[in-house]
């Protein structure tokens, strides 16, 4: 068996007295799509943010392709990396936010080329060629010169996906990528994500779109109260859930 692309082990995270993650394990193999579902406040966002070290974890570790994120190991102790090294390792992880967080003062093209140029040191023409390719992939070739505010929500989120892909990341994390969209715009973003999943991109997606989970997920993970309650292929978790809590949650969203 190959090394997992994403390996999350025994992750704990508290905000003050509130324990948000209580020992989470998660393994994602290269090319796999994992969909995380669960009720509000169960810690899904916190888990995603811990994976690329936007949140510091209290205990446990996260490794991408065998390399720790945010820490280095010395003996059996972990030390936090310097900010510069953390930033470098983050370029291996794409992140798509619920509210897009595009840079409003930069054009679509500049949004996509910014990180490859400044974080990875790619030459501008190479970065621009890549951006053109990615914008075509998300169906926005004609919008390269536009500013984010001139686009619809669905278009903005597709740009955000192109921006995340421009780093050529080993894994792309999506935190409720369609939740901020009007219902008629959800479809276009889901289409892009499905195509991405089929092309063999390793993805972890937090979503309430059960349809997406059914269609492209290799694994569905149900989280509640900071723990993984159950995980398995979509047919099993979505159609024959073993736990009452999963059943109760699904009866509400389906």
């Amino acid at each position, binding site marked *: 068996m190959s090394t997992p692309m994403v390996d999350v082990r025994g992750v704990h995270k508290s905000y003050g007295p509130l324990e948000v993650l209580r020992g989470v394990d998660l393994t994602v193999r290269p090319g796999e799509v994992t969909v995380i579902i669960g009720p509000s406040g169960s810690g899904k966002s916190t888990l995603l943010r811990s994976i690329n070290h936007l949140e510091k974890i209290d205990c446990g570790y996260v490794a991408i392709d065998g390399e720790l994120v945010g820490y280095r190991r010395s003996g059996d102790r972990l030390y936090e990396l310097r900010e510069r090294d953390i930033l470098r390792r983050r370029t291996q992880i794409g992140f798509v936010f619920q509210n897009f967080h595009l840079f409003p003062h930069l054009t679509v093209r500049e949004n996509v080329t910014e990180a490859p140029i400044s*974080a990875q040191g790619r030459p501008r023409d190479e970065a621009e060629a890549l951006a053109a390719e990615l914008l075509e992939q998300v169906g926005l070739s004609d919008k390269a010169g536009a500013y984010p505010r001139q686009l619809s929500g669905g278009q903005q989120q597709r740009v955000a996906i192109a921006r995340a892909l421009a780093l050529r990341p080993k894994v792309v994390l999506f935190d409720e990528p369609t939740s901020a969209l009007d219902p008629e715009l959800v479809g276009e973003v889901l289409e892009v994500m499905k195509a991405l999943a089929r092309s063999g991109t390793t993805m972890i997606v937090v979503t309430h779109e059960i349809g997406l989970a059914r269609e492209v997920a290799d694994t569905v993970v149900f989280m509640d109260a900071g723990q993984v309650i159950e995980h398995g292929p979509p047919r099993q978790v979505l159609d024959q859930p073993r736990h009452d809590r999963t059943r109760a949650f699904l009866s509400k969203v389906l």
Partner: protein
Amino acid sequence: MAVNALVTNPAWDWPVVGAYLFHPSVLHAVLFTVELTALGIVLGFLLGTVLALMRLSRVPLLASAAWGYVWLFRSVPLILQLLFWYNLAALYKQISFGVPFGPAFFSVDSMDLIGPVTAAALGLALHQAAYAAEIVRGGFLSVDPGQLEAAAALGIPRARQIFRIQLPQAMRSIVPAAGNEIIGLVKGTSVVYIMALPELFYQVQVIYNRNGRVIAMLLVAAIWYLVLTTVLSVVQHHVERRFGRGLARTLPPTPLERARRILTVRRAARRQGPAWDGGGRR
């Protein structure tokens, strides 16, 4: 009627105003005022930006040093500070370079090092920096934290996060406040008259003390202050447009464009006859 009184009442002395408006000594004073303002603003905002970044940094020592600076320089009146720097220069007439309490290697006249002009520019800049720091800091705080998060998630280096992602967006709120400060300083430079520096306000006083035409000379100064602030307001408008790029769906028109648009609409309305409410917007 009021306008009529303004133009015809001989007390206003319009011929004298005309005679002195472009008088060389007045022009020099205007230039000096512009210089002092520019020095005060440029140095003030440079130092202010450094102070703001210090306060926003995660290093407690830097943050508290910057806080202390702002506290001190916002507390002491500008006029007091100016007199302080000026007299400090006068107090230590000689500044010696050498081993403390030992032989002096060489010494310079402190009036050369801190002459009245330097003292004035320094005072204005140090004072301005405290306000600029707060304006710049406020600008950074006005940027959606999600922007920084997105930049961090993309692995963009820290300095680049600040200058490429945050600062341009912070400028949206910095520019109007900075515009206020600059215009305030144009007029604020008049306080350096207490150091007998030939800026605009001091210069017109010198002239009316000689010729007794107080109202006329004050009008000369007022006209120049109006001209300077008008120019600055136009510049500010264009700078705001520059940093508004991408932040509104369409850029607001420049005053010239707006005037042209209103004219076209009027003409079209006249041609079409009935009223048509096509104002500034689409």
